[in-house]
């Protein structure tokens, strides 16, 4: 028949091949036996239990995992994937943030114009800035959802109490990371949002110059109180910019990163993801 000529496969035949998976096997065979492949990889991967274990145990990145887990821990309906996505978003902000740091100077005279330069003159600068900002905002949302899921599954109950406590530190640091970053564009939005936020420190009991009982603490004044320690002066000015920059790029990421390591380590030590016994 006409449509069975060699070299011109029929559509129906092709669909059948795709459906049965035969086509992919064929492609795989072609690729795996090609000269490029065989010269690059000296031997194939045999899907044996021993190799499955080695893939995890002998890989510096993957060995964060146990080699075997409870079947139910795979269910997205259980974890919502939110802890992992939070971590991924954190990593995305680290990568994009380092790139932004190449172009940004935390100085009153420069900061705003560096942002403009980044947006209009740096190749992919706008994209990097957008990814950094949206990943940060998304991280705030996913960490709240992660916490909600952990609460709903009662996963803070013994033996995981302490990991919940670490988690509360993590959510606090996530918010502080986002908040300190908010000032850095040095535009009106940044300056006034941070003014509103840090004004609260003025009202700290005992230590803020407008807080309850401040009159009983020696030396508390608008120039010298909890708020001025935070922003390095009595208004949100260049010293605040530098302080927030250092906190945002160095101190908080280091602390949050360290806490994440402990968080992941504790998940394993506490017996993996929680589940019905």
């Amino acid at each position: 028949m006409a449509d069975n000529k060699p070299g011109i496969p029929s559509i129906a035949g092709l669909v059948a091949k795709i459906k049965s998976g035969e086509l992919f096997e064929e492609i795989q065979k072609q690729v795996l036996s090609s000269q490029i492949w065989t010269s690059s990889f000296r031997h194939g991967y045999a899907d044996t239990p021993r190799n499955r274990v080695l893939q995890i145990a002998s890989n510096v990145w993957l060995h964060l995992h146990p080699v075997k887990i409870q079947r139910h821990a795979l269910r997205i309906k259980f974890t919502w994937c939110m802890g992992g996505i939070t971590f991924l978003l954190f990593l995305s902000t680290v990568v994009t943030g380092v790139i932004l740091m190449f172009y940004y100077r935390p100085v009153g005279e420069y900061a705003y114009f560096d942002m403009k330069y980044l947006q209009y003159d740096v190749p992919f600068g706008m994209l990097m800035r957008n990814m950094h900002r949206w990943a940060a905002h998304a991280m705030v949302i996913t960490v709240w959802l992660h916490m909600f899921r952990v609460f709903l599954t009662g996963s803070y109950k013994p033996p995981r109490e302490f990991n919940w406590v670490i988690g509360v530190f993590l959510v606090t640091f996530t918010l502080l990371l986002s908040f300190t970053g908010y000032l850095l564009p040095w535009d009106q939005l940044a300056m006034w949002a941070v003014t509103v936020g840090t004004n609260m420190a003025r009202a700290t009991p005992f230590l803020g110059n407008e807080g309850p009982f401040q009159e009983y603490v020696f030396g508390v004044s608008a120039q010298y109180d909890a708020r001025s320690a935070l922003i390095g002066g009595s208004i949100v000015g260049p010293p605040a910019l530098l302080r927030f920059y250092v906190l945002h790029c160095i101190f908080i990421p280091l602390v949050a990163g360290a806490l994440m390591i402990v968080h992941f380590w504790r998940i394993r030590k506490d017996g993996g993801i929680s589940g019905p016994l």
Partner: protein
Amino acid sequence: MAIDKPKNKVEGLEEKVHVWPYLVRLEFLCALFTIIGLTVWSIVIDAPLEEAANPTKTPNPSKAPWYFLGLQDILVYFDPWFAGVVAPVLIIVGLMLIPYLDINPKGNGYYTYEERKVAIWVYSFGFLVLWIALIIMGVFLRGPGWNLFMPWQYWDPHKVVALVSVDLPYAFGVRTYNMAMLFGAAVVGGYFAVGTAAYFFVERKAIKAVGFLRMFIKIQLYLIMIGIVIKIVLRLAFNIKYIMVTPWFNI
């Protein structure tokens, strides 16, 4: 589609599975979709950049970053020492205490409403209403002067809102400063005392098993959370400003 329920073990299926490939491939797919989503979002929507910072030009309204707008909204009802300092500290400490206060052994590691109704209600109320709903209100409905505007209303910076609120002692006819202070202290102190006593009475059978200190801290945290709601309602429904006025602080 057959979903294997974790509780009844499926015959012939092993309980433990290899992380490679089963978990790693899931993580890979999850990461792929997240990164694609983030990239598309970043291509489509630009991060905001307003005019350069200007300390002499205060925008109206000045809003904190959106994730703090719940707290900023509480400022309408409470003084900054509470809304901006004590409340956040209480939230953080209270969250950390959850595993040590909730000693109900049921519902560990699976979804259940039946076995821990109170816990789910309290957390969901705090998270969804006091945190998320206030944020949504703060982002979309709070305009100049931190006044409430419906989405279809014009943000009129000259909107006049009558300040008719009075303090609770005044509303009850207490007119001298010292008496008002006493009255307010009695109301606030009475609220906590009666609330605590009532809780211990209702839960008296549990004291031995749960422990006095645990129950005491738990009810104080509940009372503070309920108190915030009471104060919001008092303000909105009865125009009550402060319940207790002292030379040092007001509640």
